């Protein structure tokens, strides 16, 4: 037995295909996020509370004020994609916190000394976070019927894909900040400063078309705006009633650049490009050694 142990291949011999090894390490990081997610059911329940409260309390309340302008259901449908994004936001951002936490607790070091590229680790981490976030969003998505969004497979598939992309964008944003930060407290401070404005300036609660110019300008540089808008346009494409409503429901006007409506496809591309660039920046920083 002892002899067999010593004679087994040493580290050098079984050096596997480079890509296969990176893939395996990356998927391990992804799986670790999923395990953490599945083992923290209480955390899931709590973080779902806020978006549901938002949708079914704040949403219903506000929709009464709009009752003069279109049916109250319209506002609920308008709000719905934003609430999906909100549901995904907390878990997405928490990936950043977990990077900082891994650094503080030491597990990060275990990964950093492994024979894999650091960008692989970061990508695995972000995809894991995005998956977890999209799962959370999907729970809210399942309640779509309550606000009048039809249950259609193609619509849900499209929404899920967009939700996943939005989750990735938010995850990567958290990662960009996290890789520069050593202490968990600093990270939370940075996030508080960042997330609230990002939510308010995303056209999530009120349409860009109704914003004053300065506010609209800020909203148009926010990647979340395009994530929300793409989902909203996807819903209205399948559920044209609100746009065609008696009021003309201007709240459903798509985001426009100087009068040119941004098509949902372009919005999706914009969010994807943002995610890719941010991921590249975060990887670069993460790969730096002293």
């Amino acid at each position, binding site marked *: 037995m002892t002899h067999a142990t010593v004679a087994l291949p040493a580290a050098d011999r*079984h050096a596997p295909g480079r890509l296969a090894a990176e893939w395996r390490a990356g998927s391990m990081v992804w799986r670790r996020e999923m395990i953490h997610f599945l083992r923290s059911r209480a955390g899931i329940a709590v973080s779902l509370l806020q978006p549901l409260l938002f949708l079914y309390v704040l949403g219903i309340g506000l929709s009464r004020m709009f009752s003069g302008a279109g049916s109250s259901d319209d506002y609920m449908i308008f709000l719905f994609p934003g609430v999906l994004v909100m549901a995904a936001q907390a878990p997405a951002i928490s990936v950043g916190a977990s990077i900082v936490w891994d650094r503080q607790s030491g597990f990060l070091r275990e990964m950093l000394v492994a024979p894999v590229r650091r960008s692989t680790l970061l990508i695995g981490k972000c995809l894991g976070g995005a998956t977890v976030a999209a799962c959370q969003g999907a729970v809210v998505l399942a309640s779509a019927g309550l606000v009048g969004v039809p249950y259609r497979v193609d619509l849900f598939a499209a929404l899920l894909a967009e939700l996943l992309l939005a989750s990735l964008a938010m995850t990567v944003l958290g990662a960009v900040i996290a890789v520069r930060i050593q202490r968990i407290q600093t990270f939370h401070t940075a996030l508080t400063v960042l997330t609230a404005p990002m939510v308010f300036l995303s056209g999530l609660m009120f349409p860009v078309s109704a914003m004053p110019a300065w506010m609209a300008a800020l909203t148009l540089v926010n990647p979340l705006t395009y994530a929300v808008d793409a989902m909203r346009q996807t819903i209205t494409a399948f559920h044209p009633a609100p746009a065609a409503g008696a009021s003309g429901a201007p709240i459903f006007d798509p985001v426009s650049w100087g009068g040119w409506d941004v098509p949902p496809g372009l919005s999706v591309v914009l969010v994807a490009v943002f995610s890719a660039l941010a991921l590249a920046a975060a990887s670069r920083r993460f790969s730096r050694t002293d």
Partner: protein
Amino acid sequence: MFGAGPRTARGPAAGTDGDAAHRSGRPAPAAGAAGGPTAGSGPPAVLARGLGKSYAGVEAVRGIDLTVAQGETFGFLGPNGAGKTTTISMLTTLATPTTGRIEIAGHDTRTAPQQVRRNLGLVFQETTLDPELTAVENLRFHADLYALPRAGLAGRIAEMLELVGLSARGDSLVRTFSGGMQRRLEIARGLLHRPRLLFLDEPTIGLDPQTRAQVWAHLAEVREREATTIFLTTHYLDEAEQCDRIAIIDDGRIVAQGSPAELKSVIGADRVDLRTGDDMAAAALLHERFGLAAVRGPNGLSVKVAEGARLVPALCAALDVAVYEVTVTRPSLDDVFLHHTGRGIRDDALPGAAGTAGTAEPSDSGDST
């Protein structure tokens, strides 16, 4: 305390030979074979030349040379802030040297960091386990990170858990483990991918004496069964004594290097303490018969002599006065440390560790006859 039988007999030279035999089955490093090291001898586990590191103008490490042969157990000692951690960071590819170069098992840390990492196992001072995962999951994740073959992996994991005595706790969350169990699991994980070189940074810091002994018992077994080169830092002298060779770093430089016995012989003399019926007369006799200058203290006489234990019989025979007590104190590593760094090895021990450590080390100052 760590007297694993076969180990005690093994000096540095014997160790190297023994390991050459052990290792003949090992493949030569794939990429570094250019220099043509034959299987068995192989390149040194660690080869550092002119290693230096500056942070913002402060020189943490000032040009050090280190060679650790394969199969050796190498102790790296130094006061806190002497450059130990920085050196280890560089050796493990976590930091890039400002000057000099490092080869680990024949691979350059700068040009082939991935091969270097594949050959390293690391156990850090602070835990790097994921507490929310089970022991087996932690090991499985490690296997994924190092892309270990899946065939036989379950067996290898079981073997490693058994090696560190954690077989029964494989499916428990690491969060429920005691400090000693976590450390042992980290050692198991560090060895899982069969590294040529295992780095242990203060592997037993903060552990109580029993747990410390347990960790070392497992390490002794690791040395036997896995034939791994071990590079460790420690503040415990009895642990340093276990090493084949030691280097002491102070202020960014290596101030002493050699086997514990060699280092102690540099310090030279043993100290012989005597309690006699008539110290004055005894001192005079010592001077007259042995040419030794005795120092009189409150507890009797004290002389310095090269081979203290050999002096004792002659001494007792020669002295006419009544001898109540003779104590021979050999130079300890603490004396060595003090000699080279101007500080005792534990002067700056971490406050957290001091409580257990202070009381646990009554026997550091050598053997008594």
